């Protein structure tokens, strides 16, 4: 009993870590630019395809494809932000939703055209396969690796946000973009760099997610609800809130599928409604 519970918790945390990696960019876009970017999952999908393509066609080892996935998604994000997104920061939520949903549909169709509609597989290196024994529990090595990557990313982001000049600028812009611009902060540059960073992290998450969530052209639509849920529950623009929300969502989803498979998807949608009703402003704001 205890062993399965701990196993479910562990899998939930690993799954939540992935959600965090992919969702953090969405949270930044929403908190910083007030932009509802439904196309965010497309950046994750791009990272995933870069990973599989580099492995299959160029023979790059799995670990080396991860930076590639990050860079590719970040580059696309950096290119699209000034071209398209910037025009819509002041638009109504409906316009933003439609615009980014249009981008999502285009990305799904484009991915089907380029890579076909099938599931992509990833061959993990041998040292990431298998399980290790820890306190009588069988822990998947790959899931431990995921948690490690996310912990490292979280530490990196925290030190970026709290310890650097650029981080201070980001925090200033989240609180009040207009006043920040008045103080001489180049708001457009802050937006652009954060957007690219968020897209890159989504790409990294997408590459890491192939083994857990799978990868096919409908990826951006299939997991959209999860990303949105994480961001809304965690509170936009909050690192800690997003992390906590990701792990809560991850644990509930895994536990729901394990303990009550008959009502599978109800658990996550039900959780979403309950959390939204209890904390309309996100967890973080309610705690203050």
């Amino acid at each position, binding site marked *: 009993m205890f062993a399965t519970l701990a196993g479910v918790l562990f899998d939930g945390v690993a799954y939540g870590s992935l959600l965090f990696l992919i969702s953090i960019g969405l949270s930044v876009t*929403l908190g910083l630019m007030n932009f*509802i970017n439904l196309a965010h999952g497309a950046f994750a999908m791009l990272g995933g395809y870069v990973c599989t393509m580099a492995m299959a066609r160029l023979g790059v080892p799995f670990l080396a494809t991860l930076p590639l996935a990050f860079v590719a998604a970040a580059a696309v994000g950096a290119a699209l932000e000034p071209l*398209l997104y910037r*025009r*819509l920061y002041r*638009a*109504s*939520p*409906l*316009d933003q*939703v*439609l*615009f980014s*949903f*249009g*981008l*999502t*549909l*285009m*990305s*799904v*169709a*484009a991915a*089907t*055209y380029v890579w076909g*509609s099938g599931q992509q597989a990833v061959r993990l290196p041998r040292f990431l396969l298998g399980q290790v024994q820890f306190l009588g529990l069988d822990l998947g090595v790959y899931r431990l690796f995921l948690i490690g990557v996310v912990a490292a990313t979280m530490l990196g982001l925290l030190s970026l946000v709290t310890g650097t000049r650029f981080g201070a600028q980001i925090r200033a812009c989240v609180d009040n973009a207009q006043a920040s611009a008045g103080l001489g902060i180049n708001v457009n540059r802050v937006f652009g760099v954060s957007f690219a960073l968020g897209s890159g992290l989504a790409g990294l998450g997408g590459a890491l997610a192939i083994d857990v969530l799978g990868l096919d052209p409908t990826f951006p*639509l299939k997991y959209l*609800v999860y990303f*949105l*849920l994480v961001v*809304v529950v965690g509170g936009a623009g909050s690192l800690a809130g997003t992390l906590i929300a990701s792990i809560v969502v991850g644990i509930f989803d895994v536990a729901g599928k394990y303990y009550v498979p*008959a*009502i*599978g*998807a*109800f658990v996550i*949608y*039900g959780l*979403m*409604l309950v959390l*939204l*009703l209890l904390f*309309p402003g996100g967890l973080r704001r309610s705690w203050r």
Partner: protein
Amino acid sequence: MIRPPASILWLPNAQWRPAEIAFWLTAVAALFALPGRLMLASQVLIAGLFALSLDLILGYAGIVSLGQAAMFGAGAYTAGLLARHGWGEPISGLLAGGAVAAAIAFATSFVAVRGRDLTRLLVTLGIGLLLYEAANRAASVTGGVDGLGDVHLRNVLGLFPFDLEGRTAYVYSLIVVFLVFCVARLIVRSPFGLSLRGIRDGAARMLAIGSPVRLRLIAIYTIAGGVAGIAGALLAQTTQFVGLEVLGFERSADCVIMVVLGGAGWLYGALIGAAVFVIARDVLSGINPVYWQFWLGLLLVVVVLFARGGVTLGLASLSRLLRAREK
């Protein structure tokens, strides 16, 4: 918010203008002009009615919803199940579909109209997904992914059987859509309708002048749910089949797209947007279903960036631009 200019939004009185009469005459003419494509024409009408229901809450009250298919599907399953289990009388089935959908809309309205746009978006999305899963799991009642067949309907008014060609289906749909449209037209021109526009443009101020904002939003959400239910029931009756996709997220998203294509906030936009959408989907997905999604996405991006107010107003402003250049 996408919104047409005042001249189109504000008709000075409730009289039918020549353009409106011409619009409905065109719909009647389609019966004789397109004898082979009447099933598609019925699809346009039903999609139009569904889009109209969303326009009531989105265009007039400013409630962004991604879960309108919940009510559409509820209406479709109600009408389908009634007909399957022996109650094949179409008109009462239609009303029952609308009533059940309105009841669901009313029950969920208390959570759906709360909060700001993003919260509403997610709550309505969540309600839609929950109902989809519920219908999926209750396969013994709804048929699950296989859909609900064996839907047998009696003659409309005891006189007109549903024929293969779709003639009865089209006339029946057209009459229903027209009647519901007239009611919707009355609603949006009433003081109640005006107060909805006030709420859309400034809920805090409406509250300050004593308008019961929450009650008004719940009322229009329920009404729109009923309209969506009637549209769903129409689909179930005219196709004599209910598939699980009537509750799907894609149907909700398509509905938003139709309203935005035609322009939100003037009822006809929903009907025109639905016609453009359904006909374009029929033509383009016949060529290749994957490319159709691509072009749809591109169209959305272009509409948002360059043609706010939908295709109709986009064309109008384009022609104005061209005329200005000629001078």
